[in-house]
Each structure stands twice: as C-alpha cells, then as structure tokens.
C-alpha cells in the first residue's frame, strides 16, 4: 500500500485514501482527429518497468487530482505535483535523470 503526498493539502496519503487514474500527461484527441491519434489517446499506454508518471486523486481527502512520478519496480516515489500542468516540473525531471541516468524521459 503506497503512501503519496498530496501536493494540495500536504497530507501523506495512504493508498486507500486515493483513487488511481492511470497514465499522466496524455494529450486528448477529440472530434476530427485521425484514427492513429485517437487510438493512441484512448488505448496506447506505457507499461514501463521503471519510471512512470501517474494520475491520482485524493478521493477520500481534499478531492484533488495530482500527478506522481514513481518507479513501478522499486516503488520509489520521485515526487508529486498538481495536475494543472502539461508537463512535469523541470526540477523533478532533473532529479529523476540524476537518479536514473538511463531513463529516456517522460514522453
């Protein structure tokens, strides 16, 4: 059972307080998009053994969605940050790169 810190209310939340929301930083493709773009948006998901960016909601707390970067293999949590962003904060990316030089980036 993971512990993730909610970046809004500061609570170190137990996984049972949270709702998982899958991969973060997806770009939405709506009406008029190509089949390839729409397929990628709707179905293609990364499943890395390693660094992963995820959506979580502090469902039984403040109710806010936030994003988390963690390692799916070691359960190391690199950081959490608000969902209102198109890309992860630069300092977090730098921190992950330093810890995992082989990491290819979040895209």
């Amino acid at each position, binding site marked *: 059972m*993971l512990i993730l810190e909610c970046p809004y209310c500061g609570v170190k939340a137990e996984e049972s307080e949270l709702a998982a929301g899958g991969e973060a930083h997806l770009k939405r493709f709506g009406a008029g998009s190509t089949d390839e773009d729409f397929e990628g948006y709707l179905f293609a998901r990364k499943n890395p053994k390693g660094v992963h960016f995820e959506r979580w909601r502090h469902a039984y707390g403040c109710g806010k969605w936030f994003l988390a970067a963690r390692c799916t293999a*070691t359960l*190391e949590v690199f950081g959490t940050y608000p969902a209102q962003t198109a890309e992860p904060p630069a300092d977090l990316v730098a921190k992950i790169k330093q810890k995992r030089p082989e990491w290819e980036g979040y895209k």
Partner: protein
Amino acid sequence: MSTRLSSGGRLIDRARTVEYSFNGKRLRGFKGDTLASALLASDQMLVGRSFKYHRPRGIVASGAEEPNALVGLGTGARFEPNQRMTTTELFDGLSSASQNHWPSLEYDVGVLNNAVAKFLPAGFYYKTFIHPRAAWKHVFEPVIRQSAGLGRVPKERDADRYEYFYAHCDLLVVGGGIAGLQAALVAGAAGARVLVLEQTAHWGGRAPVDGVEIDGKPAEAWIKASVQALEKMSNVMLRRRTMASGVYDHGYVLADEKVADHTPGDGRPRHRLWRIRAGRIVTATGAIERPLAFAGNDIPGVMLASAVRDYVVNWAVSPGDRTVVVTNNDDAYRTALALKAAGLQVPAVVDARDRADGALPQAARAAGIRVLTGSAIAKAHGGKRLSGVAICAQGGEGNAVTEEIPCEAVAMSGGWSPVVHLYSHCGGKLSWDEAHAMFRPDAARPPTGADGTGFVFAAGAANGALYVQDVLGDATKATIAALQAAGVAEVETVVPAVKAEVEAPMIPIWVMPQGAGPDLRMKMWLDYQNDVKVSDVQLAAREGYESVEHTKRYTTLGMATDQGKLSNINGLAVLSNALNAPIPEVGTTTFRPPYTPVTIGALAGEARGEIFQPLRRTAIHDWHEAHGVEWEPVGHWRRPYCYKNGAEIASAAVNREVLAVRERVGLLDASTLGKILVKGPDAGRFLDMLYTNMMSNLKPGKCRYGLMCSENGFLMDDGVVARIDEETWLCHTTSGGADRIHGWMEDWLQCEWWDWKVYTANLTEQYTQIAVVGPKARAVLEKLGGIEVSGEEFKFMEWREGTLGGLPARIFRISFSGELSYEIATPAGHGRALWDALLKAGEEFGITPYGTEALHVMRAEKGFIMIGDESDGTVIPQDLNLNWAISKKKEDFLGKRGQERSYLADPGRWKLVGLETLDGTVLPDGAYAVADGFNANGQRNTQGRITSTYWSPTLRKGIAMALVHRGPERMGEVLEFPKPDGSSVKAKICDPVFYDKDGEKQNV
C-alpha cells in the same frame, strides 16, 4: 509410548491442571501446555490423516511450521477448522477434533487411496481432467469430492468479535527471540519508536532450550532482564501472540494478535488486526529446521530434532523411551543430549557425514551415545506409530541394511532454513549460501521504500546467522543499519557475549540414502500435508516441468495450509538434482502473505452485519420501513421496491401500485437521484462537452433530458438538467451514478480544462425529492397550495421555485412514467414533512406510494431506457434510437470521436426495439434471440437479446425491450427466445413505446 516426564518442563505449571477433550475423549494437561504437548504427554501419536492418501499423521514440529497436527477447534459458534495444535495454547474446556478421516481417526476408509497411490501420481488431476472426459465427471470428481478437503466449514455465525488497531513506528521488530530483543534494546536506547511482535506467548525463542549462556548467565536470565528493561522504555511497545502476517509497499505491515484465543468468551475481542506503518523493519524471525527425506519419514513418531528438544525441555514430554537421532549437522546432537539428560535412551545418532568430531558429537559420545557416521536411515517401520528404523550407509542404495534399531521416535535434522518470508514479500531478494545449504536474505537487494532505499533488515538466524554465538552481533549490525537508514546517526551498542558449543559444518543431504531406488523414493515425503513425495517431484521433472513455480502447481508441493514451510527447500533441491541444475538457478517459489493463516474474522474486523458497509438513508427511510416496504439495494442506498399491504405478495403490490398511478395518483421517494450543481462563467461550455446534446442554450426555468458518454462513445449516464440561472445548472444523474459522475466532472475540470471557470457541488444528500405522479397529481399540489401548477402557467419540462404547503420547494415538471408528473425538491430537513403533507393532501384522491419496480414497469411501458438495463458499457445512444439527443451542431463533446469509429457507425448493430410475446407471457430476462446456424463453438448463432422484460398490468400482457440486429427495420418479425428448460418463447418485434405514444397524458 509418549509420556510426561516426572520432572522438568520450563513452560508448564504442574500445580495447575487443565481439562480438555480430543475426539470426545476427556484428557488432562498442565497450564502452559500447547494442545500438541498435552496430547503427546497422553500418548496421542496419531493426530490426523493426510490430504490425498489419508496416511496416518503425527506431530512433526513444535511451532508455526507444523504441517500435520491440524484440528477443528471449539464447538458451535466458536468452531474453527485447520488450527495447528502446536500453536494452540491449552485452556480449560478446550474441545478439539481431528480432521480428514471417515468414519474415525483410527479406522479411515479413505486410506484406500494409499493402496492405489501408484495410480495417483503427481499431476493426477491435470491428467484426469483431459482423458477420458466422461470419466472425470462420473468417476473421479464424485470420488475426489467425497474424500477431499481438510476441516469442516463452520456452520454457525461466529460468536466472537474482532477489531483493527492502527500503529506507527520508526522500527518494527518482528520476532521476540534473542535477536529481536537485542534489536529492540539497541533501537530503544537510541530513542526510536519501537514495536516488537512475537508470535508465541513467550519471549526468547530457542535460546533457553539450546542451553545457551549470555553474559555468563543462562539465556533465560538475560531474556528476562532484557524484557524488563524494554518494558521500562516509554518508546518501546511489546506484543506477544502477534504474528506479522505480511510486509507490503512502503513499510505497511499486517499483524494478527491472538488476544483471546486462549481465553475464549472472556469478553475481549478474539483477534486484533494490527495495521502498521513502519519506517524500517527488522525481521528477527529465526529459522525453521528441515526434515530429512528417508523412506517412511511420515510415520507418526518421526519428528524434527528441534521439536523433540522443545517437547522435552519446555513441556517435559518424552516422545518415547527410545529416540534415534538422524542428522547432517551438529545442532541435532543437542537433542540427543537433552533426551539423555532427561533420562531417556538414544540408541544411536545416525549422522550422514563421514566425520563427526565437533564439540557436540564428542559430548554425545562422552554421554555414552553411539554415533554412526556416514550412515542413513534406509527405512522407518510402523503404521500408526513408529516401531523402528533400518540403518544403512548414506552413500549406498539402501539395500544393504547394516542394523535394525527398534525405537518409538526419530528426531531428524536436515539443517535449517532462515525464515525469509517477510524479507521477500515486498521484493527482497535471496542468495544461496553454500556452507549452510540455505537461501538467506541478500542485503544488497532489499525491498525498497518510497525513498528508494531498503526498509527491511534481516537479523540473527533469519539472516543466516545460524550459530547462536553470531546472533546478537548480527542483530546489532542489522539494527544499526536500519536506524541509520531512518536517519538516527548516533547509536550506542553493547553486544553481550554468547557462549555455546561450537558447531562443525553441516553437509547438504536431500535424499537419504543418496542412491535410493524408486521403491524408497516413493515413501520419502516432502510435503506431509499434501502428500508430495520425492518421486512426485522427480516425475514432474521427467515430464518437463523445469520451472519451480510450475512444479509446485503440478505436484501441489507447498500448496497446503503450511505453505511449504518444511517442504519447499527440500523439494526444490530434489528438483534441481533431477534437472541437473544448481539450486540458486532453479530458485524458490514466491513467498506471499500471510505467513500463517489469518482467520477471515480478523481481516473483516468490526465490518460485519449492519456495519459491513455504510447504509445511506433518505429522509423518508423510516416511513418506508413502517409501511410494508420491500427494499432494493441501490448503491449504498436502500430504495423501496414496493410496499406490501399485509399478506400481499410483491408482484401483486407492484401491479396495484402501477394501476394506482395510471388511474389516480402515486408518490415516489426519488431522493436518491444524483443532484450536481454546476456553476460558473464557463458552466454552459463545460456541460456542452459533457452531454451529447446542447445544454448552454437551455433557458433558465427550463429542463432538458441529456445523455453522457465515455470517450469511447458508450452511454454511461442520463438525467434531466435544469437551468437555474445564467451561470447555474442543476444536473440530475442516476441514483448509482451520482458520485461517479461528480468525480468524472472534477477529473475533466481539474486535469483537462483547468483554466475554465466552473465549480461543481454534489448536492444529492442535501435535497429530498418526491415525485407526485398520475392524473390527479395537479389536484394534490393545488390542495397543498403555493406554487401555481396550472397547465398554462407551468408547462411540461419546466421548473418553478417557491413554497408548497408552506414548505420551501423547487418543482420540476418532468415525467418518467408518461403521466402528469411533478418532482418536488425540498431541503432534506423538510423531506419527511413534505412526504406527510402530500400523503394527507392526496388521501381523498387515493394517493398510493410506489416503489422502484412500479417505476421500472411504467418507464418500460412508455419505452424509456434505464441505464444499466438498456446500456451495459458497450451500447451507444444511437443503438437506443436516441439520435435526437445527440447534437449535430457541436464541434466536439466527450464520446463524439469514439462514436465516429467505423464499427460503432455500422448500420448492422443491434438496436433497440419493443417485443410482444405471441402468447402474452413474460419473456425471460437476458434471453437471447437465436438465428440460423451455429458458431465455431457449436452454439446457436444469436441476433438479439432482452434488456428489460415485465408484466404490464396496464396492457395486461408481457412486454419487453431488446437489442436486435437491425431491429427497427424489422417491425412485425417474430423472433425465437430459447429458455433454460429447453422450450422457447416467440415474440414479435414492435415499437418500444407501448403506452401513450403521443404523450397526451404527460402534457395535460
């Protein structure tokens, strides 16, 4: 025979006799006994039967690793099956019964399986599943079902209660032996918050039994002093009878405290489930001795050497006058010496090693014990109890028996395996230790926590420090590492000196004797409980099972209730020899929680009966309850299904309610409908994205029915939206969907359109909503007085706010039945008053409360869809002929792109139609319409299925809605719906609107 010794027994109190029963026989033991020690003291060598062959089984171990000695414990509401005798503390009135035999333990018919054992090899089930198929169904399965299963399932509701306890600590120490106590002393002195858990009722573990000296005193004195010192530390908490069951992500640990197992019915909770968050964990869980694989090693009387020592020293129990010790290491000589010291005979120590010159073997020789080196047990003799052993050379095939030794017990030791379960649960890796032939925790590859560093540290024997002299130093080192990882820099330590006999190296022995032929290997048990033998594992290897995980499942090795605590290492060693691959290459099976079984009651805790899950009640709940309600669960709500008049059956009540609404007026508690307020400058734009139709152009004061789809395009919720003012909309959702849809809105607002100015609030519980439905609905509201409800002033699909009978009210003129209908919302605090006022005002019009089933029947008569009936996550609105509710003007909305996908736009999809049975009966729910021909699986092709089906009291016939291939183009066609009994019903495709197609009734 096994008996009680006249003196000794460090754990028993001879002054206090305890009466208990086994298989109806009244027996006596002492306070401090376990059920196992008490039964052994009463010469009960035979305690159960094995799972597959029903072989006689005796007690093998003295602790949690026991595979054989399982009993049904207690009676009636306190009965529990599969309890280990070795961990059951004796108490007055304890009632126990052996398992897995018929008609009795002594005379068991199932033992016939033993006679046909040759025909029940590894993978028997898998093989018989395949050929011949008929034999499985008619021969094997009935026989297996008759003989399978361990204990009986409890029949009564559990009389006990259970509770949860939440704990946080810097350091969790699992195990209260000398390693665990040392870890606690070090961490406690460093000021850390420490929690120490010991699974038994006693501190100190094995050290007092093994004759160890610490700080120049017997181990017992050091243990006592250490526990006293720890009890004085306010930052240290100690718990006995608490088994750490599993280690999970980020330092989460579950532990099961057996609070009142030994004092049943004393009012305390029986178990307490500890839910622990530990900063770091030290596992001082010790080691478990391994059995040796020789022929007949499952005969009652063959025990682990450490267990024999425990029974003699702790409980003053003699396993028999003559005990042969068989070993591959020095530690087992301690058992020989303990037996000798208790005045019992040890005819021989059979040592598989060619030399045994260490201090312990020398002490044994000095005590007059014969030591046979390079020797093995060729075969143990006996049936329900051991009668003797045949000795041979370890290096041979076992045919040249050098000696027959009569004996009542064998104390065997194949070396020790560290208890690595908790280290492994969360990803900690093991490495193979050649010297001790064991897997030990690899400190370089620990389970890692949120900060990326290791959070579990193995200490003492659990870390592979098998020589007791090394244990305290190893525990100290592990604790310092754990504390430093937790950020405690300064740690002062004192490591007391430990004195014990120095042990010479062991040698790995996996099969005894080394060259044993097939006849002997067929009698060498690895897994006692599931009857897996050396020959079974070798057969699996010959049949191509190379993975240890596959072999486990094929042979069922380690899959019994003991989860292979004794058998796993021996089994995988046999497998690796058969595969000619080194043991570390073969690897272990995965260690999974729980360490020992946890009773379901403890996991459930207080969450049972009425508080299993929260119940949501509307403001009118109590009224329903007092008026013959039949409840229907809807999410966490209870909604009235119908109200029964006296002895009336439910279907009659539903018909009565439908007709009352259609002819007069009915009253429905609709409070559970979701009510979500959406407000802000961008609220209209937001709702246009959420709903398939346009909501931004809805005028204040008006209502509109809307659909919501997922990005896949599939229909997920529906409801009426009312525009309250320029910036405010009130969205009604389904009863079960309110929380989900509110979450859905928040997801889009927070994560995609976070710059849009919109605020949402889920007001579902803030309002009571009551529907007044039927031709007399307006008359009822007029009688109460307040908001003007005339047809000219207040039209269909409008809403008004004001008062009704003096109560604040917002009335929506919407209809889900086809009748004249008003849904009245009032703050929940006024809900019951409004209900009562409506009932009173409606009395003269024959007002009738109705439930969800009448609601469903009426909506089906009117052809309205129901989310969850007509939709199932694969249905798009177009399938339900709801194209009118899908905007063609909007550039985008959630689901629009999904619905453009070719297979959703295909005109050949199953679409909504109505069905009328030719004979007027009611179609079975979920039935499929068959088409010509058969599919690849030999099943009839299908062309549609029923989504809703009811008896219509209005039309006096069965009506249904169905999704049918190109349905709307096939009006008048007759479809065939087979029933489970082999007959079938014929039904004609028709318009799904059965009642008042032109809407004259709702529009008056």
